[in-house]
């Protein structure tokens, strides 16, 4: 069984009755449990299903559909680089290569020391300030390869907020 923080439980208990159907609360609960646990384990999925009187597959099918839901924990820092066209036109791929070099980690993977998970993501709707990078829940804009190297240094030293 998973153990959730009391504030998570409180949020869940407040949220579920607001919806016309309990199933509507499925995606919000996935978010809340993921924020609490860092990722959605099988146990978490079963817990959400039981809370909403659904079958685990009803939650599992959401987890496999929605890109932001994950079944594995990320590194301490979760670095997401937007690679969609407007950001790419501003140099997002070069930005990502700079991160790869600094973290010694290929995009789509977690660094060996478990510090950083580096991912490509699709458009984050801030295309006027590309390349856009997110660290945890914090957004950074206009990140050219040089700035990326600076951010990477601060991540390695633990100076940068992990955005959570």
């Amino acid at each position: 069984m998973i153990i959730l923080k009391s504030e998570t439980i409180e949020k869940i208990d407040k949220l579920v009755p607001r919806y016309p159907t309990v199933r509507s609360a499925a995606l919000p609960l996935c978010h809340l449990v993921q924020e609490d646990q860092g990722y959605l384990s099988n146990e978490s999925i079963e817990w959400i299903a039981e809370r909403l009187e659904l079958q685990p597959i009803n939650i599992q099918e959401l987890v496999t559909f929605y890109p932001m839901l994950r079944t594995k924990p990320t590194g301490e820092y979760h670095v997401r680089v937007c690679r969609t066209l407007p950001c790419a036109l501003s140099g997002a791929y070069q930005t990502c290569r700079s991160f790869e070099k600094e973290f010694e980690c290929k995009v789509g993977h977690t660094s060996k020391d478990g510090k950083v998970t580096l991912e490509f993501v699709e458009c984050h709707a801030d295309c006027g300030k590309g390349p856009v990078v997110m660290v945890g829940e914090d957004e950074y804009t206009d990140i050219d390869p040089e700035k990326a190297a600076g951010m990477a240094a601060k991540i390695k030293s633990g100076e940068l907020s992990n955005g959570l």
Partner: protein
Amino acid sequence: MSHQETRLIFKHIDEEGYTNDIDCYVKNGGYDQLKKAVTMQPEDICAEVLTSGVRGRGGAGFPAGMKWKFLDRKSGKPIYLICNADESEPGTFKDRQIIHQDPHQLIEGMICAAFAIQAKLAFIYVRGEFFEGYKILERAIEEAREKNFLGDNILGTGYSCDIIVHRGAGAYICGEETGLIESLEGFRANPRIKPPYFPAALGAYQCPTIVNNVETLCDVKHIIEMGGEGFAKIGTPGNTGTRIWCVSGHVQKPGYYEFACADITLGQLIYDVCGGLKPGRKLKAVIPGGSSSKILRADERFTGKLKDGTEYDWGIEDIPMDFDSLMAVGSMSGSGGVIVMDDTTDMVEALANINYFYAHESCGQCTPCREGVPWMRKVTQRMVDGEAREEDADLLKSIADQIAGRTICAFGEAASWPVQSFIAKFKDEFVEKAQEQAARRKEGKETAEATTLI
């Protein structure tokens, strides 16, 4: 034509000292239109919105008043209002500004709209990546509730309405209104087929539902303020109100700029407003309405007849920025995302980038899209990887032609239009790519070149 912005929705965006809390909003006349709206008859508000001619700002450009008119009010079922804040069309970043900097404008517009359609429960479906935006909206709703602009017995009128902020989780397809509804109901966001599932008749929880974009709902507030006729004076007939153009890519000053419809041409937007291109670069192409819209080539001539019969003969820079003009030149104003590309852009790479996006985002429900879009991605990826074939351009077009029009939702078109238009306008570059690689292969050289866009 003037180059002065008409800031209606973005009046306070980036204004010094303007904060996103309710006190600042009220100080600037906020919620006055709600106070006015609740003294009106709901059907009169709907009539004003119809008169205003406001067209949906989310992409399709369907008249919002007409959408409201289709609402099934006789079913006896509850009516829902949904704000589509799943802003995710590549190149679009206007709703983000409203949510972050002026959330009460959206909330006021929503309550006015909810009152007009007599919805008792409304949702803001906000994309999951807007972590901060979600918190801002939640706080703004609490503030509005405390002041009785929202919740039970709003302003003592006996009318009650609540707003739930519902977070998405990274799926582009949730921007499609029926996919959004599926997602809201706790399912995978597989769009529903229309008919019968027109949300106005069978929407959320199989009840009549109106889904409007953030900007459209903000417009409702201004329609109440100016009246439908007053609003319709902005812009041109059939293209009323303002549009927020989000300009990205190879311009000196990317950003968001609000103009009355047709008040500015594409050329003025790029060269005068956005400071033109980088020194020494030339314009190559523009995607005018988000990545799904068809690309325009810089040296094209656009000729034909507009809906009202006037003949036009435009270069790319002469195209007036409004719904009908962009449609006339074979593209669309879509969600207002203008992506500018200069002469350093490799069109095969650009299309490979776009195809990667759509292949990632196909929901997988319809076979032509689920199989076809990743196939197109594979072809363009192979081309940039050094294995381009001269016949690839025709192959890509043939796949795209077999997707568009054969899917449940418009994603099939959204994914096909870029391919069809890139091939129609830049086929030479696709063929040359193959020829260059063949030549390098003959010389015993590496066929692939370093890429920048994929």
